[in-house]
């Protein structure tokens, strides 16, 4: 009787282990296979990820290559090739410990020598990251062993780590560039057919139409679930939208016209998420030119601008009104009580009257020394928003007696006229202010190339300089907060809008970068999977399969022992009773 019980138990055990994978698969475990199509605006320029500014190439590089460290969707620094790093107390030495099983797509292992070569080339050939990682500030890069590398800086640079994880710092295959002196030499095939170390490998690039990547089976952090990752190029926003809706795309990385977003929201099978990104539209005054050096005029103008109305009219309501002297998207650095003046037309008019800007007969004010307050708003024509913002400002400033004419220029001409020749009244500019507030130093501080308003407040400059060398977190934070208070007071620049980014994708895909904070960089589809893919057996099934033979042997042994025990017990009982 007992053996039957034991036999039944074992049988039960076996059936459960075999059927369980079917049961489990209904839940949200990832599937294998499928093609993800990301629709984006343009072609990458080339496949050298660190040589030049390439907004269109960047999302592709984030899946083809790796950096030492990278940034997740919340701009937190997370490990990439380096699983661990430590910073010396004096903030001068950074030691990175690399994964040992990372290989290039052609099988060659990724080593510290690749890292050393990459950053020395960035320094030698002035890669785009040369400026923000302050390559000239790197004293030396020492290879401790194949998987440990040490960076020694000349002087401490607190934002080094976050800039290392940002733009233009991908580790590149040294062996592919060895026989070319210039890493941009067009004859080098790798510029057209890249070799990376990332989760996806290069397949083909049909210019103007699409870039196709496929899963890298021996990716050091585990093979991605998707088979193929395709970037489809559609430059026109509304045709991109219609292709997405017509099922030709799964992720819409082209910002659709604002009016389409409510419709997209309500379309079945489509998810739309939006979140603030550390980019801002801001206007700058030409402080070298009268009357813009008069702070009361700038204050009055600040009061006259209703930032939420600007967003509602110029950007169909999609954006966050800028609140202070820095983007609110990087929470730790944003000083919430250094706020910009709120919309108050009466106060603005009063300020102007008191300051002697008398109202002329035609409803336009005159400056104290008699010139008409008719100003030019200079913008670059990269998209419809820049002009739309101008139209709104024109209407709003008219209410306080200031006449505005719009001057649209191609971006090169804008840069020449505004940045170089300082030949403007008010100019609109935008810019990424992440990943670290140190970015403000090269944008608003004294002597920065992009500081077209010529804002030269020395205290502001010192605060930023100081913050860039203090490694202590809370001390650094206080310095940035103080800087924002001065920035908001001087009003050389008036931030208008904190930009919003949209994440639009089809519901049949999961594990997208913006759903995997802390695990992958903000463009990586390494963890993305497709609902309709093939199911993967859970680990223990894999385990069972791999060592089925061993299990059988063990079972036999157990049964053998049990039977033997039963038999011996009977003998014993037989002896005693007889």
């Amino acid at each position, binding site marked *: 009787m007992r053996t039957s019980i034991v036999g039944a138990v074992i049988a039960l055990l076996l059936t459960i282990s075999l059927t369980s994978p079917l049961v489990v698969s209904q839940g949200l475990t990832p599937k294998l296979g499928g093609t993800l199509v990301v629709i984006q605006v343009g072609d990458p320029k080339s496949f050298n990820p660190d040589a030049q500014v390439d907004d269109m190439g960047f999302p592709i590089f984030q899946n083809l290559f790796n950096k030492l460290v990278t940034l997740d969707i919340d701009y937190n620094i997370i490990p990439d090739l380096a699983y661990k790093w430590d910073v010396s107390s004096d903030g001068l030495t950074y030691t990175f410990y690399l994964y040992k099983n990372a290989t290039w797509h052609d099988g060659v292992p990724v080593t510290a020598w690749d890292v050393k070569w990459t950053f020395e080339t960035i320094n030698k050939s002035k890669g785009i990251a*040369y*400026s923000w990682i302050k390559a000239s500030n790197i004293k030396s890069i020492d290879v401790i062993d194949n998987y440990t590398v040490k960076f020694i800086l000349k002087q401490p640079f607190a934002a080094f780590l976050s800039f290392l994880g940002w733009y233009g710092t991908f580790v590149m295959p040294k062996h592919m560039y060895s026989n070319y002196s210039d890493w941009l030499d067009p004859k080098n095939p790798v510029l057209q057919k890249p070799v990376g170390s990332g989760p996806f490998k290069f397949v083909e690039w049909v210019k103007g139409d*699409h870039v196709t990547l496929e899963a890298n089976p021996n990716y050091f952090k585990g093979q991605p679930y998707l088979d193929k990752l395709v970037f489809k190029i559609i430059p026109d926003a509304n045709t991109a939208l*219609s292709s997405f809706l017509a099922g030709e795309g799964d992720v819409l990385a082209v910002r659709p016209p604002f009016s389409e977003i409510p419709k997209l929201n309500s379309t079945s099978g489509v998810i739309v998420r939006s979140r603030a990104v550390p980019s801002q539209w801001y206007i700058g005054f030409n402080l070298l030119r009268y009357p813009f050096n008069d702070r009361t005029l700038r204050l009055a103008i600040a009061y006259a601008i209703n930032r939420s109305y600007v967003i509602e009219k110029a950007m169909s309501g999609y954006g966050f009104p800028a609140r202070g002297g820095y983007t609110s998207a990087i929470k730790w650095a944003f000083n919430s009580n250094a706020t910009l003046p709120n919309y108050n037309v009466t106060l603005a008019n009063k300020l102007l009257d008191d300051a002697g800007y008398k109202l002329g007969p035609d409803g336009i004010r005159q400056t104290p020394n008699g010139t008409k307050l008719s100003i030019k708003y200079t913008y670059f024509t990269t998209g419809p928003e820049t002009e739309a913002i101008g139209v709104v400002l024109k209407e709003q400033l008219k209410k306080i007696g200031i006449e505005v004419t719009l001057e649209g220029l191609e971006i*090169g001409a804008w840069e020449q006229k505004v940045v170089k020749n300082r030949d403007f009244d008010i100019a609109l500019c935008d810019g990424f202010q992440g990943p670290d507030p140190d*970015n403000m130093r090269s944008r608003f501080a004294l002597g920065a*190339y992009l500081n077209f308003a010529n804002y030269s407040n020395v205290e502001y400059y010192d605060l930023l300089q100081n913050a860039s060398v203090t490694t202590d977190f809370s001390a650094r934070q206080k310095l940035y907060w103080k800087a924002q208070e001065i920035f908001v007071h001087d009003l050389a620049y008036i931030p208008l809008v904190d930009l919003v980014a949209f994440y639009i994708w089809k519901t049949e895909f999961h594990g997208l970068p913006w759903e995997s904070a802390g695990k992958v960089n903000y463009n990586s589809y390494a963890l993305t999977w497709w609902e309709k893919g093939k199911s993967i057996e859970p680990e223990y099934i894999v385990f069972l399969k791999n060592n089925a033979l061993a299990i059988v042997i063990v079972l036999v042994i157990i049964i053998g022992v049990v039977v033997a025990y039963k038999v011996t017990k009977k003998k014993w009982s037989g002896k005693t009773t007889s």
Partner: protein
Amino acid sequence: MEWKDYLLRRSAQLLLTVFFALIINFLIINLAPGDPAALMAGELATKEYIEAVRERWGLNKPIPERLVSYLLNVLQGNLGYSYTYLQSVSNLIAERIPVTLLLTLTSSIIAFFVGLLLAVKTSQKAFSKVDLFVSNVMLTIYSIPSFWLGLMLIGIFGVALRIFPTSGMVNVRSTGSGVFLILDIAYHSILPIVTLATIQVPIYYKIARNTIVEQSSEDYVSTFLMAGMSTSSIFKKYVLRNSLLPPVTVFALHLGYVLSGAALVEVVFGWPGMGRLLLSAVYSRDYPLIMGIYLVTSITVSLANFFVDILYTLLDPRVRYK
């Protein structure tokens, strides 16, 4: 022999003209305000980095020197490297030419035959109600902006009726090869071709109709009429043959604009052709690419003129046996 020196003189003239066009283009572009190096260096670049970029692309040398070196390169067939695409300009353009030709060539051929057919039909009853109505409708079609027509076609057929794809050259999901790829591209090219063809039909219609009407009142028509030939066979055998040359010449001339004509339609349909390549080159100040595209388009225009001369001798015996 008279033919040889005629060809020589004509091609010398051609080269000279292209040469001058090139110089003018070079000056217009390089004298423009704005500095491509700063643009390429990006927002956060330091002065030192911008200098490095300028130096790599030789933008620091004075304009005359750059002009001479550019012309020398062009003579050797090397159009230089594109700043932005980091590829040789010649194969960048070579990739885009077939794509643009697919649209522009097919649409001009369709427009030519439709225009000719329409002209033949209406001009036989010259100055009748139908003839005038059709020519006025043609004038109206000729006034439609190409990009707007394309947009409306997308709105109606692409979005509302969902018959045709709204953009791009190929449906990425099913990039088959061989026949499927061709079918797919053809399917995507229907709307752009219809747009381009519609706005070109009036050009060929007008030239064909006017020539036919003119030729129908020539003396040889009354000679054959009096010889007892029916008006329809006179028309088929003699009037048509005589009226062929002007429309064909206009077609050849328009071939010259085959590379540059469809820029706006390419933008609306998201078609990766020459037009879009030039637009992106202008916006990113890619001087070698802009120059390369201008050179190629100027050459096609002058080749078209050259081709027209040859056409004249072939089609018109009066020129051949001067």
